């Protein structure tokens, strides 16, 4: 799904984390805030942080401690949980590998495809291009729930009309290829929209100058557009990274119960569903391992993420 925040459809250049200069207007605004508001802000800040902090502490506590006291007592601290989920029968590292293997092509492929499509939609004049753009954008209307089962059937057995095979099965069934394909397809409407927004910002003169100098569309795309688009590529890249890494639905359907290719979210979800009694103490450690990589990426690249968000988009 996607949103247009700036009514003009352009990217608001809104630095979010930069300290603002103390202008007169800024001081006035500051004068309007009061202690109640600050207290509320503090409360929200604490309430929003405590749950994750609790998980972190709990993941370092042994079975005994977890069963007999709350995490805030810091009793029974141990590394055993982490040792157990990174080796032996309950090792979840292979699933983290799966997630990495899934996320790289699933982010790169739609970026490249969308950048090319957006180039044609913004810079090449042809009849019906506005309609194509609106149609692609409107495809966000298709919920994953509607698309995922037929896509799985397509991957398993190809496309048929009646008994005629149009496209044969590609042998992707039971491989991560099926998951890439699903994520790449589902990401496209949003990706095209984002790239289109960013590309419309680039001054037309630049392109026209290059055309006059005899550059072809292919050259312009490679040598002028891609370098200029780097922030947009990064913004969408981190978006898609978080989306794919955190996804459960596509992963669980497209991996079709094959634990060999299941991403980490599916593994943790199964661990929760299948463990009762012994082994439950491992869940916090497994869950924390599953969120630590996106958290690091997110904190490190937040700037790009926010930019992508403000240029009008988030998906779900």
């Amino acid at each position, binding site marked *: 799904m996607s*949103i247009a925040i700036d009514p003009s459809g352009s990217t608001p250049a809104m630095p979010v984390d930069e300290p603002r200069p103390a202008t007169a207007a800024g001081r006035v605004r500051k004068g309007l805030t009061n202690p109640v508001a600050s207290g509320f802000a503090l409360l929200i800040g604490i309430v929003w942080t405590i749950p994750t902090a609790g998980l972190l502490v709990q993941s370092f506590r042994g079975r005994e401690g977890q069963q007999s006291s709350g995490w805030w007592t810091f009793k029974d601290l141990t590394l055993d949980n982490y040792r157990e989920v990174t080796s032996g029968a309950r090792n979840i590292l292979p699933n983290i590998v799966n997630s990495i293997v899934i996320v790289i092509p699933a982010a790169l492929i739609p970026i490249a495809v969308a950048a090319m499509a957006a180039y044609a939609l913004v810079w090449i004049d042809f009849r019906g291009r506005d309609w194509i753009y609106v149609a692609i954008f409107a495809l966000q209307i298709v919920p994953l729930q509607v698309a995922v089962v037929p896509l799985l059937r397509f991957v398993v057995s190809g496309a048929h009309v009646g008994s005629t095979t149009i496209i044969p099965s590609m042998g992707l069934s039971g491989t991560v290829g099926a998951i890439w394909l699903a994520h790449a397809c589902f990401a496209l409407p949003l990706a095209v929209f984002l790239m289109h927004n960013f590309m419309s910002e680039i001054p037309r003169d630049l392109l026209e100058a290059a055309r006059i100098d005899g550059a072809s569309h292919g050259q312009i795309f490679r040598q002028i557009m891609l370098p200029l688009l780097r922030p947009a590529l990064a913004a969408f890249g981190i978006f898609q990274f978080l989306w794919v890494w955190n996804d459960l639905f596509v992963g669980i359907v497209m991996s079709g119960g094959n634990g060999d290719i299941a991403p980490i979210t599916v593994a943790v979800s199964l661990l929760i569903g299948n463990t009762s009694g012994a082994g439950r103490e491992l869940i916090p450690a497994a869950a924390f391992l599953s969120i630590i990589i996106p958290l690091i990426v997110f904190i490190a690249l937040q700037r790009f993420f926010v930019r992508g968000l403000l240029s009008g988009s988030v998906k779900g």
Partner: protein
Amino acid sequence: MRVNWLRDLAHSSSAAGKFGFAILIVVLFFAAMGILLLLIDRAPKTGREKFQAFLFLLPALVLLAIGLVGPIIKTAVSSLTSAEKDRAGCVPIPTPARCVEDAGGKWNNFAHFRWAFTDNDALVSLGHTMMWTLIAPTIATLIGLTYAYAIDKVRGEGFAKALIFLPMAVSFVGAAVIWGLMYQQPSENGASGLINVMLNWVGLGPLNFPTVGGWRLTLLMIVVMIWIQAGFSTVVLSAAIKAVPAELSEAAKIDGATPGQAFRRIIVPGIRPTIIVVMVTISVATLKVFDLVRTFGADQYGGDTLANMMYTEFRTAGLSAGGGTPLGEHRSAALAMEIFLLVIPFVAYQVRQMVKARTSQ
């Protein structure tokens, strides 16, 4: 002999094999895109621009056709046609076909939708999905709006924003574990979730999560959704608040407005379009809520939603003797179409906004 090594690589279970396959595919993909760009430059002179545009668009159109357009047609057909019917207790040996009573695939007069709107479980799921969509976006937006205004221009604003924003990086599965811990029932050994401990201080009983079931369980899960989405609304609304001309609040202050009045009369009307956009965005995400419900196993306690029920129906559909589609899959398609119908007004609004923005350029 042909591509056996590729197939082996694709099915490799070692980390190196998996990475190798991923890298190979990425390299092949970019090589294909490179060739496409070369083709674009070698386009024939007649109708050149149109042909080039077509090639630029081709990969996207192919993927969209495979991944979205084709599937939605298939799901729509599936939701409107009958399932294969097998004879009960028939052994599909030697020929499976002898067990097929009706191969299915025929128009069945909305039978699956009639089921979806009369079956108790399906109606309960629909009710819960509505409840999610009414509550989660509203509260998440309200919290984001108030928080964004409260921390605006305050020292440490960036840090305050990061605190509420962080859950956006956490998966729903991770969030389910985090909140499962917060909601944990008091056990006989003494451990209890923080929320139950605090409820105990004020003399209120434990939450009985998740066995409390029904709308109460749904409310507890909605809290988690709000926890995740509030950061999104904070960041977007904060940017919008900063875009409101400072002179306006300045003038209000000179006229003796309190901060609350300035907020209600100037800021909120000034950023109304953004507020709507944030609510629409969160609503669309909420309509499809699956991961949280699945991970909490809420369907076992009467806290199901449409998206989760759709998956359950698909999952438990089983196999049909004749290779036709079993009933569960058709019902699952009907539930998916139900979500689709519910999403339409929201996305239609987004498309309208987008078209409006384009024509005003």
